[in-house]
């Protein structure tokens, strides 16, 4: 059950852990923003990773090609919850087209090596970049975004990232 890694490697991994679990993540996990139902949503979709149990619904109000409001409900780990919370904050007021571009870029941020990442400024989403070092957790951070993508495009299926 235990492995004894050399100290240097252990330190590096602990730094990665700190990078993953930053205070902003804890804050959004404890008090998720825009965490409510939206009875007058124009678009919504469900996301569910049955193997791990992360589950959420993303609600949007879209008018004039703009995301006027965004919220979510559900349950998940700290990474999934914080990612959903940050996502709803970031996309509010943005043109749908821009939100879709951000979905693709954010996905690339978490799945491509740091050296190959785009020059885009991810703003507050930057705190999730540390997830890249934990391949098993990428699905947690991207589930809300795939669900958002489905909500915008009216996909009939429940979004899954595992």
């Amino acid at each position: 059950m235990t492995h004894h890694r050399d100290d240097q490697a252990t330190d590096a991994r602990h730094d990665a852990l700190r990078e993953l679990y930053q205070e902003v993540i804890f804050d959004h996990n404890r008090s998720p923003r825009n965490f409510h139902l939206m009875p007058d949503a124009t678009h919504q979709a469900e996301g569910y990773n049955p193997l791990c149990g992360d589950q959420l619904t993303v609600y949007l109000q879209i008018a004039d090609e703009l995301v006027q409001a965004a919220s979510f409900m559900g349950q998940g780990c700290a990474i999934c919850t914080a990612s959903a919370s940050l996502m709803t904050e970031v996309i509010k007021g943005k043109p749908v087209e821009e939100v879709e571009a951000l979905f693709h870029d954010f996905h690339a941020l978490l799945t491509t090596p740091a050296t190959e990442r785009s020059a885009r400024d991810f703003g507050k989403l930057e705190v999730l970049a540390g997830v890249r070092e934990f391949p098993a957790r990428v699905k947690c951070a991207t589930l809300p975004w795939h669900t958002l993508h489905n909500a915008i495009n009216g996909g009939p299926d429940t979004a899954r990232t595992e």
Partner: protein
Amino acid sequence: MKAAPSPLPPQRFEAGTPNIAGAITLAAAIDYVSAIGIETIGAHEQALLARATRALGEIPGVRIVGTARHKAAILSFLVEGIHPHDLGTILDEEGVAIRTGHHCAMPLMTRYGIAGTARASFALYNDFADIDVLVDAIRKAQKLFGTRGTHDTPPG
């Protein structure tokens, strides 16, 4: 080219290479287990389980799920305020591999009203020191998450 001989079923449908390596490995595994003794292994696993159950039970904020008297050497548990997946990642960094989530038993999780559990398994190759590492790792996770582990009272 001449026709290949076509045996009668079921041999006709047994195409490909039989799992020779698997059979040899199984025999080796049986020899290994027999040499130590099933009962010796069982006793060791139960000693680990008893020790781990006691140790985790003493950590504030830890709830053990499943307390049947006769159970295999696995320990499902929840840590208050920390989702099992987050716990799994942190324990992994501490060198402790556990399984997290539904454990292919989603109806049971629904019955308990929980999102999943963290689960440690014990086997012949584990020792009491591994349990100490597990306990320390859970306390570190609590510290990182700022949950109860940071301000628990000393035993006594």
